[in-house]
């Protein structure tokens, strides 16, 4: 993988992005570092589902909002096809919004209850000039609905309240697909969908990747679905990447003590496989989370060393296929 030839293929580059909230006259103690030194590159010719996994407050939604240009980074850059998205002209930004779509958590909040669901599609067609004639519009909307397994006749003309959560979320995915994007940022797309209908949405994501070459940033707190559908994964903890790599390797063989705790805590759908032991999180730890100077996981880590208290660890290589963990345990390994 020689760098120069791949330059032209770079779709999205997130370069050392940092986002600090609450900076202002009140003083540094009120600052929250939501995301720290985050980097990621996606290639146009290599569609992938990249999971960004973490607990609440880990910075995963901040990353989504940065990429979608809802907020601006404190430092670092986000490039789309080599252009900084926060410095784009109106025209460039419009084409970026065409190619990078979003799907959010709440399939109820995404609709205006006073309009029929057709409105959502009609708006997209008009805004991005996808069709000149009514017949063309109907055809492309029909095609998009078919891709997500919905029959236009059963769906169009209905109001949002007449549809189930699963149907609505599929509509949102169909609307995103309508624009033939290169990337869909999906922020917890299935966390409000029942288990029996969740598989359908995840299958659609896999299909869009395999058949249409659309990449996904799959932002989730759910490691099991991330394991099932994603190619790569980033595990975030308090704004920093604790571990990243091939999703199967990271989840199958976690190296960072935090990832190990996280994966060990996912309940197993088998009563014979219970949680190994009780874990104690003292209230003091819960209240005074994180270490200011050193590793964020210091106070909860079973392997904490003096060094971890001093400075934050960088990402060390811990395995094949770009498997990295930010932990001093692996300092010697590269």
């Amino acid at each position, binding site marked *: 993988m020689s760098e120069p030839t791949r330059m032209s293929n770079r779709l999205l580059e997130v370069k050392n992005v940092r986002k600090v909230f609450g900076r202002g006259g009140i003083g540094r103690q009120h600052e929250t570092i939501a995301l720290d030194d985050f980097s990621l590159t996606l290639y146009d010719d290599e569609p992938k589902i990249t999971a960004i996994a973490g607990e609440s407050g880990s910075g995963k939604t901040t990353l989504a909002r940065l990429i979608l240009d809802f907020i601006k980074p404190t430092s670092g850059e986000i490039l789309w096809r080599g252009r900084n998205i926060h410095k784009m002209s109106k025209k460039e930004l419009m084409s970026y919004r065409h190619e990078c779509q979003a799907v959010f958590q709440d399939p109820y909040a995404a609709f205006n209850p006073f309009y029929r669901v057709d409105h959502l599609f009609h708006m997209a067609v008009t805004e991005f000039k996808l069709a000149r004639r009514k017949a063309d519009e109907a055809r492309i909307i029909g095609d998009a609905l078919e891709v997500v397994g919905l029959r236009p006749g059963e769906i169009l003309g209905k109001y949002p309240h007449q549809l189930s959560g699963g149907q609505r979320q599929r509509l949102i995915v169909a609307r995103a697909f309508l624009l033939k994007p290169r990337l869909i940022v999906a922020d917890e797309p299935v966390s409000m969908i029942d288990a029996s209908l969740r598989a359908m949405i995840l299958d659609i994501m896999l299909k869009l990747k395999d058949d249409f070459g659309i990449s996904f940033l799959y932002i989730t707190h759910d490691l099991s679905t991330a*394991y099932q559908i994603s190619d790569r994964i980033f595990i975030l903890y308090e704004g920093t990447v604790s571990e990243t790599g091939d999703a199967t390797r990271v989840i199958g063989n976690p190296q960072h003590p935090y990832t190990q705790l996280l994966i060990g805590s996912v309940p197993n759908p*088998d009563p*014979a496989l219970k949680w190994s032991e009780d874990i104690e999180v003292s209230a003091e730890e819960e209240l005074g989370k994180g270490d200011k100077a050193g590793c964020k996981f210091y106070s909860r880590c079973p392997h904490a060393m003096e060094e971890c208290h001093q400075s934050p660890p960088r990402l060390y290589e811990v395995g094949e296929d770009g498997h990295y963990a930010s932990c001093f345990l692996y300092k010697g390994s590269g």
Partner: protein
Amino acid sequence: MTELALKVEDLKVWYWTDRGPVKAVDGIDLEVKKGERFGIVGESGCGKSTTAMTLLRLIKPPGSVEQGRILLDGDNLLDLNDEQMRSVRWSRISLIPQGSMNSLNPVVKIGSQITDAVTAHGDSVARAEAKAKIIEMLGMVGLPARVYNMYPHELSGGMKQRVCIAMAIILQPQVIIADEPTSALDVVVQRVVTQTLIKVQERLGAALVIIGHDMGLLAQLVDRLAVMYAGKVAEVSPAEDIYKDPLHPYTQLLIGSVPSVKEKKPLEGIPGLPPTLLAPPPGCIFHPRCPHATERCRAEVPQYREVRPGRMVACHLYE
């Protein structure tokens, strides 16, 4: 026969709308043994939360209890007047409601909020005595005594949830109902809260009814599990049996739809959608989505009965 802590007989709870009744809970039977951890699992709209609220008689119009009995240690809760019910609530049966960590009053200190619960439902205890008791309960759920003087915003989500557990057990009820006790929490915190709940339940020797949607989480928790679908109980079985050998086709599909972190497998959902409870389908309510549906399932409602020792199911396959 083991003694029962709670028995629900042919319970029907309907919500009345302009277009007729929505049969949220439509004739369910449940038995919870003393000291047992009993799970009720199902997807949105299956009636599990309505069941939880009904057990404490907290259903408000347009909802109404149409039929049935709720026997708590032999007393039918549906026969009690409001005053009697108030003295039963919290002292004999308590609830950790869904999203309860967000139900704490933001401007009242934790200690005062728990004291309110004690004085509203319990005997008139001296305030000093109540304080000692509350601090003991906070300790039981793993919180330091100083939480007594703290406000909710000073606590993390998991700590607030543990405060709600402390509040629910303070009068040492025989039955604790927990409606999705960890649904908004992260996996690690979920594990801590769940383990706290089990520890407390074992110490009190109370029966714990846990309502949830996550088959994986309930597997870690319960002795027996009821699977609800569209207002009815599909199956009740001991936890080990239900995961190894689920009887009802819905239970089988539900277990199949839980993604794993142990092995990669194609994701399986359940085709179709849950029925509208305004006009449920005739016959077995699951037949439109069932891979084994026959003519009989389309016409005749299956009887809910014991098909193997300790295993109850409502399905024509086992008749």
